[in-house]
């Protein structure tokens, strides 16, 4: 098994006719992701990907016609919150939001709105989900990893690829890799995914990639020490980041004393988690 997404996941692409949406839909299609529909308001009735995928005007009609049970969002930042609301309204259980640059207040409202809804959001500003050999929802390159028993969770984008690549070089495969995104307000976080990996039969160990800012790694450390029996290896980026400097990443602002890489590494190690010094060291720390 895997977590969140597998080969039977029926994927809808919101913003499928945009440049990025189309390019990555092609990539996902080539990975044999089961894309069942696209949505692009005003372009319903068209077909994309060599006439194989129908485009709908609304998520609701796409879901009604195709039974899609996951959605990936590529719409521009200004339309992103609305795209999420539309997916939630159509009761899609999993929504992966790739879009970067979503205003923070939009995401705060989205988060509040999501309370007690059935929908789980990954992102925004994230690379998405890759279950190697089964499905790719988002933009994680498919050829840099293969099926295996390591679960990967990351707040970063390209740094995640670096880690997957390092794992591949060390001949370690992955059950599912999830980039949760680096924005300060986002959907699913480390703890929820740790819980899923702990319960997943295919996953034997977990790699967690964090960075400066916020307190998610600290919360994860506490959760791991209490509830996670599988080995966890962590890496934290930003040891040399100057405090208070914005790193082009809303997630990378240091708040108060908390949130420095040093603090996070200390907390993780105090909870018995092995922390790698650089990404390529991660495979050697795995069990």
């Amino acid at each position, binding site marked *: 098994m895997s977590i969140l997404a597998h080969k039977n996941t029926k994927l809808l692409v919101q913003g499928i006719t945009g440049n*990025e949406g189309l390019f*990555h839909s092609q990539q996902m299609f080539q990975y044999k992701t089961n894309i069942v529909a696209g949505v692009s308001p005003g372009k319903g009735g068209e077909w994309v990907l060599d006439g194989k995928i129908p485009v709908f005007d609304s998520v609701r009609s796409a879901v009604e016609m195709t039974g899609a049970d996951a959605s990936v969002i590529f719409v521009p*930042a*200004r339309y992103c919150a609305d795209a999420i609301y539309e997916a939630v309204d159509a009761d899609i259980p999993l929504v992966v939001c790739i879009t970067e640059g*979503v*205003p*923070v*207040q*939009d995401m*705060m*409202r989205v*988060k*509040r*709105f999501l309370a007690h809804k059935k929908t789980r959001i990954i992102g925004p500003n994230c*690379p998405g989900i890759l279950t190697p050999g089964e499905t790719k929802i988002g*933009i*994680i*390159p498919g050829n*840099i990893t293969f099926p295996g028993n390591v679960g990967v969770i*990351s707040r*970063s*984008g*390209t*740094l*995640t*690829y*670096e880690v997957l*690549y*390092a794992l591949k*070089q060390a001949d370690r495969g992955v059950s599912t890799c999830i980039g949760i995104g*680096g924005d*300060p*307000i986002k959907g699913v976080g480390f703890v929820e995914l740790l819980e899923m990996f702990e319960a997943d039969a295919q996953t034997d160990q977990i790699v967690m990639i964090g*960075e*400066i*800012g*916020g*307190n998610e790694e600290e919360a994860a450390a506490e959760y791991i020490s209490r509830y996670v029996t599988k080995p966890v290896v962590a*890496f934290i*980026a*930003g*040891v*040399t*980041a*100057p405090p208070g*400097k*914005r*790193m*082009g*990443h*809303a*997630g*990378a602002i240091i*708040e*108060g004393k908390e949130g420095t*890489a040093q603090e996070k590494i200390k907390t993780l190690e105090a909870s018995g988690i092995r922390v790698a*010094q*650089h*990404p*390529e060291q991660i495979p050697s720390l795995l069990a």
Partner: protein
Amino acid sequence: MKLQEYQSKQIFARYGIPIPKGRIAGTSSEVKLIAEELGGRVVVKSQVLVGGRGKAGGIRLAKTPEEAQEFATAILGMEIKGLPVRKVLVDEAVSITKEFYIGIVNDRVHQMPVLIASGAGGMDIEEVAQKNPEKIIRIHIDPLLGLCDFQMRNAAIGIDLPRGLWKSFIEVIKGLWKAYVDCDATLAEINPLVINSENHLVALDAKVIIDDNSLFRHSDLGDLRDMDSDEPAEIEARKFGVTFIKMNGNIGCMVNGAGLAMATMDILNLFGGEAANFLDIGGGATSEKVAASLKIILSDHKVKSIFINIFGGITRCDEVAKGILLASNDLKIKIPMVVRLIGTNQAEGQQILQNANFTSADTLAQAAQLAVSLAKGKKS
């Protein structure tokens, strides 16, 4: 995007928050005229986007227009924490009987805005938060419901505000909340909010930070960006959609993605080197963007080697390779470069660079070690 005090005050005034009478000036003679208009006693305040202006002598109380002019001459010639003072705000002097802090900020841990208030205004609020946390009132705001009247009353109670001022205090906070929402602020702060000698509330200082991600819907606010507060290289980078931050080392970095860029700087450090900059070319970088980034890196003459680490997802390695070729031909770059291209269109990218003379490396660790040793003057 941080706004200057005078810009923040202009916004607050639009939302009904009382501010002192005042005007912005760029020359000391203007300052004298404004001081005369305002009746003589004024505060001359340097407009730079750093804290500690007061301690640095960038805020002065003048008793006469002449004194105001004299102070302005001094302040307009200053640099505060490396930033030149080009403008001063001239505000009427306010006699203060009590100071408070109020602010609304995004709380990422609770995932909602929080109203912060304290009776210990004017001082360093972060120090208060650390030493006397009980003196700081924190009230979380439901982002769908908005700030409720009872929450504003609770803030007034929490800071021991005299009851006679509750009503005007609530109007101030209502304005602050509305400004925060309407401007997509990540911070909207008044420190200090004072009771003046006529027993009225006045916002003596103001700070607003706008969420950069929201600027597409605030074309008016985008114009307020103060270019003086940033490194010229940072401004240049922003034009191309590149994030650049100057650091102290000598290894120029170009990376895609903030996390990977930080990890790249970290690994240089791990192997004894030091990055000259943080540079994130972002997703889907074009060859023009890559070339511009190289130019920016090279504008720092301390740079002894360049480390390009691209892991293609949205970004395509062939585009990056083209950009590197373009720039190295244009600029006749002599500084040694270590280039690592992995991911989308990796083969095509490496193909493009194969014929040119770049040092390549397979692993991040190898590449980093190479960049460090090149910076130390060793041949590759």
